[in-house]
């Protein structure tokens, strides 16, 4: 009976199946090249019945009889629905979905991977955004587009890329610049993004943390930025031409606030400054010492004479084709940016790109060739000899166009040698006429770069592919700075003889890679495994010669210098590395994803006893909405990753070295054969949410610990060798970052997309295996750093970027008193003299004493009030020894950075904007401090101030006067008074454009043009800030994101342009 029942049931089902199901088969191909799509999903609409295509793109599916429609989908392609009808064979071609294609990433993963399957965060900027306002380089293109990216342009010198930091700093001593990869080519540290043309860039991918970057092992502690250039045409089986031209001008938004008044006596007889003695050039100051007198005669604005609207243009042409087996993309671009500085050459850059892909049966050959050549300016920044110093220091009554005694233009030192017929000069103004400096010292900075890459991929079996790749990178930089022989000395009584510095730097990189990819599905389990071997070799050769005193004119070559002044320096480096990794990804139905990576790096940069290092990553993700349906939520994924990556020590770090000082060896570094790369371990958790079909949100929290910091550790004096590179110190950073994309309007005519990105990072030095040290952030290159030299304190327990210095007392509560009520903690005030009530707060908010001291030796109160008199001084707080208290005065780290971008379009008219803001964080305005000393800062201008608020000069710059206090200038020591808020809001990018599409063009009889786009573009358009310098975007070069100091730099400027783009 049992058997009968069983048979019956089986028959019933079999008949049922026979009666209700049929078999449909077919092939799914890519529309662009008819290649089979492997693993494409084929599903019966409204059911869970479905399958995946095989390696030939084929599928076979049993479908219920009542099935009417099949849904074909493949990541990166548009999903289509096909009515089944009577057919049993259904072949389809899927079109690339531009929006979805953007969701495939190639950075940080062994192979192109959909973002939905990633266990870590990745930022991506695609062409849609990049093309709106083509930035001058990819670094600027990233601004405001990816959360957790901090960008600071430390200088406005055209051709200088900004400094980028991803999340927190991972490097106490050295750069925190990310690894730059260009189309898969790993570039060596120091690669400047300023050489890359953005027009040919398809997308930029950003891996912000060490976990995501683990794949790159010891090169990637600072994260990774990959530039992906365009390949083929926009459309399949077509050839596209694009031509774009953009013309406009540069402009400086704000001038530095300067003093328009002076404190000197005017001689009524001459209407000119009274002279101290008939022969001397010294002026006589007024007894009140107030800078409230207008300059006699004509005054000028030297900043307007130096910073001009100059030309900015860029032109671009590209041709791309996508064919059945071959596609190629070729482009050429020129960027011409004159900047704003008079008499300086433009940054003039040419780019050529060629990308070719070719397929022969199972082989795929990919090649890229990239060439860049640029000529650009440089300028003397920071120091006291350059134009940025002179332009702010010269008094406004000098005519900087006056002719020199030798007939050359631009009177050299009007502050030291009076111009005939001009005014006597002020004491000790050592400023050079900026135009003279620019006309006698010229800079020539040339760079060229070749990046070539070839890869051959071979699909051996349906589940196994191998690939070999080789890339070659050659970067060349040539620099020459020449000061003419007939350049005046600063007394203008002789020529200096001039001088020259030139260097050439030639770097070669060769990277060979072999990959083996395995991909297999086991039922609902998908697995992929990658093995990679990589060999790297970089060689660098640098040679510099410098000297002074040309023996002949107009021969700007080293052989024309006085022999005894010539100095030579050369440096070569040879870096080799060998890396292996294995990476596996496993997922179940694409909803539970797990990934693991192990990498072994061996590098010649590691000490001989630490030659190989292991890095790893584990990550996982759960696509919740695949399991749980949540109304209104299209996709919700949570993910977590933990991974390590590192940073290689500098070339010289492991070696014992003697310096050769003019032929004799002098001990320098003690070697360290146990030197390891620094190691950053990061935990990142995050979530991605697509909801209401309009919103796309991401949130990440990352916490990273950077151990084994490679630091220069001073050795005890008796060691002979003065210092050693050691793995000492640890940093911790915590970052929260978020982004929200919204499609606010998507009507027929009106469309509005908006994107908000924001982040906050806290970075702290948690351990330091050496004494705390002060730095200017430039680590070892303190040249001309001035006040900034020791401002930043590297100390365990302190934020990285914290500023230390002195502070003037601002409140009576800060005054400490002894048992008898006498104030004990003011610099220059002996104990037992004054009580709290002897002090008051002045109109600037500083503590001053109420009454002047009786004499220079008796500091007790007289009856003469202090405020408003020449005796008014603020007081520095003292430590217990009586020395100026050194305390935290600021912190470069912002509280929050936030950007909002959006595109609003109405029919063919569109407006794109990017607003960029930083909240919190400090800048040390060292420019302002030095302008105090030189009596040129607007703060010192007392004209127009109410009499009771006027301050005499000594209040600002007076030296320590025991019993009275010290000027705010504080002898050029770091002082809280010059710490300013870096908060700003900038309208970073604006593009108003109108597109004439084919329909419109056809109506006027033009049918060979796809579209024409006319745009008005503004970059760095408007900055709103309380910061008093030119622009809150300023820093000393080196580590610009963590060490913010303003010190006579080339101001960051804006551009206004109009652009025309035609596509055929």
């Amino acid at each position, binding site marked *: 009976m049992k058997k009968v029942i069983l048979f019956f049931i089986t028959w019933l089902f079999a008949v049922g199946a026979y009666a209700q199901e049929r078999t449909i088969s077919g092939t799914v191909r890519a529309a662009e090249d008819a290649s089979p799509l492997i693993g494409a999903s084929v599903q019966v609409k409204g059911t869970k019945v479905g399958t995946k295509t095989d390696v030939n793109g084929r599928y076979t599916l049993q479908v219920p009889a009542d099935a009417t429609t099949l849904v074909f989908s493949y990541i990166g392609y548009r999903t289509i629905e096909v009515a089944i009808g009577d057919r049993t064979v259904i072949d389809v071609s899927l079109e690339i979905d531009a929006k979805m294609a953007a969701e495939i990433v190639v950075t940080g993963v062994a192979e192109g991977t959909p973002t939905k399957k990633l266990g870590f965060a990745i930022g991506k900027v695609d062409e849609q955004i990049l093309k709106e306002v083509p930035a001058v380089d990819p670094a600027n293109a990233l601004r405001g587009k990816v959360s957790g990216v901090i960008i600071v342009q430390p200088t406005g010198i055209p051709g200088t890329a900004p400094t980028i930091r991803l999340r927190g700093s991972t490097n106490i001593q050295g750069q925190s610049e990310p690894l730059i990869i260009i189309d898969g080519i790993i570039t060596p540290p120091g690669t400047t993004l300023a050489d890359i043309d953005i027009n040919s860039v398809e997308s930029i991918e950003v891996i912000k943390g060490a976990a995501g970057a683990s794949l790159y092992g010891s090169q990637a502690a600072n994260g990774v930025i990959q530039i992906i250039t365009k390949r083929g045409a926009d459309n399949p089986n077509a050839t596209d031409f694009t031509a774009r031209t953009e013309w406009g001008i540069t402009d400086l938004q704000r001038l530095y606030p300067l003093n328009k008044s002076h404190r000197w006596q005017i001689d009524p007889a001459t209407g000119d400054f009274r002279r101290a003695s008939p022969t001397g050039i010294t002026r006589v100051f007024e007894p009140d010492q107030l800078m409230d007198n207008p300059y006699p005669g004509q005054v000028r604005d030297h900043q307007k004479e130096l910073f001009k609207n100059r030309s900015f243009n860029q032109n671009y042409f590209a041709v791309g084709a996508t064919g059945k087996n071959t596609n190629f993309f070729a482009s050429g671009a020129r960027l011409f940016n004159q900047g704003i500085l008079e008499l300086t050459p433009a940054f003039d850059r040419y780019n050529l790109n060629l990308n070719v892909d070719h397929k022969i049966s199972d082989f795929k050959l990919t090649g890229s060739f990239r060439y860049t050549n640029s000529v650009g300016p440089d300028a003397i920044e920071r120091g006291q000899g350059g134009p940025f110093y002179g332009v702010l220091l010269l008094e406004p009554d000098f005519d900087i166009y006056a002719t020199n005694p030798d007939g050359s233009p631009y009177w050299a030192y009007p502050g030291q040698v009076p111009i005939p017929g001009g005014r006597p000069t002020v004491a000790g103004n050592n400023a050079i006429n900026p135009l003279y400096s620019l006309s006698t010292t010229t800079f020539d900075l040339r760079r060229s770069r070749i990046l070539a890459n070839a890869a051959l991929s071979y699909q051996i079996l349906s589940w196994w592919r*191998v690939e070999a790749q080789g890339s070659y990178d050659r970067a060349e930089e040539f620099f020459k700075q020449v000061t003419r022989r007939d350049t005046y000395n600063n007394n203008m009584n002789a020529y200096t003889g001039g001088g020259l510095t030139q260097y050439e730097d030639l770097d070669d990189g060769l990277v060979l890679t072999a990959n083996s990819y395995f991909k297999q599905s086991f039922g609902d389990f998908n697995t992929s495994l990658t093995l990679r071997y990589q060999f790297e070799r970089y060689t660098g050769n640098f040679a510099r010669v410098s000297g002074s005193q040309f023996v002949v004119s107009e021969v700007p070559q080293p052989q024309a210098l006085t022999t*005894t002044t010539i100095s030579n320096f050369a440096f070569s480096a040879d870096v080799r590395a060998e890396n292996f990794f294995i990476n596996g990804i496993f997922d179940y139905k694409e909803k539970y994803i797990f990934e693991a990576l192990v990498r072994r790096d061996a590098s010649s940069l590691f000490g001989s006893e630490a030659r190989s290092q292991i890095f790893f990553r584990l990550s996982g993700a759960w696509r919740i909405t695949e399991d749980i349906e949540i109304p209104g939520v299209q996709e919700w994924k949570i993910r977590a990753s933990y991974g390590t990556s590192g940073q290689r020590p500098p070339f010289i770090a492991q070696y014992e070295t003697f310096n050769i000082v003019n032929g*004799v060896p002098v001990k320098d570094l003690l070697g360290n054969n146990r030197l390891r790369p620094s190691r950053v371990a990061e935990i990142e958790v995050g979530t991605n949410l697509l909801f209401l079909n309009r919103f796309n949100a991401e949130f990440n929290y990352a916490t990273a610990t950077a151990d084994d910091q490679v630091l220069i550790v001073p050795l005890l004096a008796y060691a002979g060798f003065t210092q050693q590179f050691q793995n000492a110190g640890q940093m911790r950073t915590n970052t929260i970052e978020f982004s929200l994309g919204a499609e606010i309007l998507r009507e027929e005519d009106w469309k509005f997309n908006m994107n908000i990105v924001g982040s906050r990072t806290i970075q702290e030095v948690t351990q330091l295996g050496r004494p*705390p040290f002060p730095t200017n952030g430039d680590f070892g290159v303190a040249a001309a750093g001035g006040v900034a030299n020791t401002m930043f304190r590297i100390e365990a327990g302190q934020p990285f970027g914290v500023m230390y210095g002195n502070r003037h007392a601002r409140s009576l509560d800060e005054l400490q008193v002894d048992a008898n009520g006498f104030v004990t903690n003011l610099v220059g005030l002996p104990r037992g003299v004054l009580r709290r009530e002897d002090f008051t707060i002045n109109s600037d908010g500083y503590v001053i004493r109420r009454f002047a001291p009786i004499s220079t030796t008796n500091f007790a109160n007289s009856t003469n009030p202090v405020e408003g008199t020449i005796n008014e001084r603020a007081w520095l707080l003292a430590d217990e*020894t009586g020395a100026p208290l*050194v305390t935290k005065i600021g912190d470069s780290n912002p509280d929050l950075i936030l950007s909002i971008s959006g595109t609003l379009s109405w029919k063919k008219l569109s407006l794109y904007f990017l607003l960029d803001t930083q909240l919190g964080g400090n800048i040390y305005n060292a420019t302002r401090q030095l302008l105090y000393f030189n009596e040129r800062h607007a703060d010192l201008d007392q004209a127009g101030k109410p009499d009771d608020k006027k301050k005499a000069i000594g209040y600002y710059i007076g030296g320590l006067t025991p019993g009275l206090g010290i000027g705010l200038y504080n002898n050029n020591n770091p002082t809280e008074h010059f710490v300013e808020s870096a908060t700003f809001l900038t309208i970073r990018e604006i593009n108003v454009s109108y597109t004439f599409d084919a329909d419109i063009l056809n109506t006027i009889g033009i049918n060979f043009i796809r579209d024409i786009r006319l745009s008005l573009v503004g970059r760095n358009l408007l900055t709103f800030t309380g910061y008093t310098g030119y622009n809150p975007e300023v820093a000393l070069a080196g580590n610009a994101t963590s060490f913010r100091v303003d010190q006579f730099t080339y101001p960051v400027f804006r551009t206004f342009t109009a652009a025309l783009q035609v596509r055929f």
Partner: protein
Amino acid sequence: MNLTTTDKTVKMIKFIKQNHRKMKRIFVPLLAAATLLSVVSCADLNVNNPNNPDTRRVLATPADLQGIVAGAFVTLYNPWRGYQHNVHMEWAADYVTMTNAFRGFWNFFKVEPRVPWDNTLANSNGDITSIPFQRWHAAISNANDVIRAIEVNRQSAGTPAVNAATLAGAWFVRAMALGYLATSFDRAYIVSPTQDISQRLDLSNYREVMAEAQRSFDRVIRICDSVSFTLPANFINTPSPYTNTQLARLARTYAANFLVQNARNRRENSQTDWNRVLALTEQGMTQDYVINLDGNNWQNWFVEIAGLEWYWRTDHRVIRHMDPTYPTGYPATGTLRRADSTRDARMRETTGYFKYESSLAFFRLDRGPQLRSHYRFSRYDELYLANGVGPCVFLYAETNRLLRAEALAMLNRIPEAVELLNAGRRTTVGRRPPLPPTATREEVLNAIFVERDLELMMTDFGIHFKDMRRRDALQRGTILHFPVPAIELATRQEALYTYGGVAAADGVNTADGSNSWLGGPTATRFTGGQTQP
């Protein structure tokens, strides 16, 4: 199952035939991988540093020991390059003046009343003291390497004469570096040539350091007295290389000089071993110790720039040696006359000591009138005009004469001291009346210190400062010696400390001003009224 080799081959061929297509697919990538691996897999990751040598390369041949000594000399004299603390000591000694805030010239060392030296890591001018401290110890380390190689490891730098010259050079550097450390800092390290420096060393006080310096000088003298040699030309850039005899004389004078200058106050000065000073100076230097500055390894910034008309000016303290009526400081208002040059001819410009400059354009009044002066040092104008390249005196032979005179005076052999003084430049150039043989010891000593200020102008390292302190003549609150630099203390993980400042005036580490040149502990340059504008 046992297979013969032939069987195996047949089987393999069979297998290949059967799997031909598959094998071909696999063969290509395998071949490619093999090629790639053969190219790079034996990648040699041992890379030499071609830019700087290490010890092995520096000491590749025995003759290279000479190079180490040459490097030790360069290191020893490194603090003269740049404005290191010899300049600052002369500021504190009221020897030079200037209003430039560069490298803390006036804001630490010239503030009146004096303030403490900021010996913290925050002081942007902290390397004023850390550079000399580190360089001198580094010079000792270099010297120790050579001494150990020759005396302990029995290596030879060449012929007996070359070997002796190398060894004498090493001991001389060691002695000099210890001497400078002892006279400038309160403490320093004593590292013997055989010291195991992986062990933590303690700091020794300046008396112990000086004793070690003296022992090293004795070693130099002993070697020089036993072997004839000429120093290799790259040791010291003297116009012609020193012989063993010249080096012995130089060593004796320096030994005496350091011994004398190690005293921190008048009390210690009286405890100096003046008999040893006398003995050393009997066979001391007879010619000026001149180094040819080359703008690179050999520089002396303090002296080189003296010829710049608006840079260093001479503090009124020094002018008052020749014209006691000259004010102690520049007045807050008005301009000042020239000093009287009738008392001492060295006040006349023609004698080439001082020059009157009318312009005070670079001397900011708001930084304090006491920083102003019309006079500058003109003795080294030629060097300035030659851009700091050329002969520069590092120690005058006159130093030896004056040390000898002082030793005689201190040993109460007044007439001999007077005789020495009267035969010197005091009368020949200064045209001063001879001192009577009946002069008191104090008068003789005062005359000697005037001579030291005028005749030894800006030589050696902080010479005038060290003279002032051993007479208690510094202003109250002036630092008497420097603390171990903050960076060194921090590396040792020891507490920071400092000296200087009126409140710390103990007469031991900080001047109490008991014999201040201004006239006692409470005296100031000015009396009455606020002088700051």
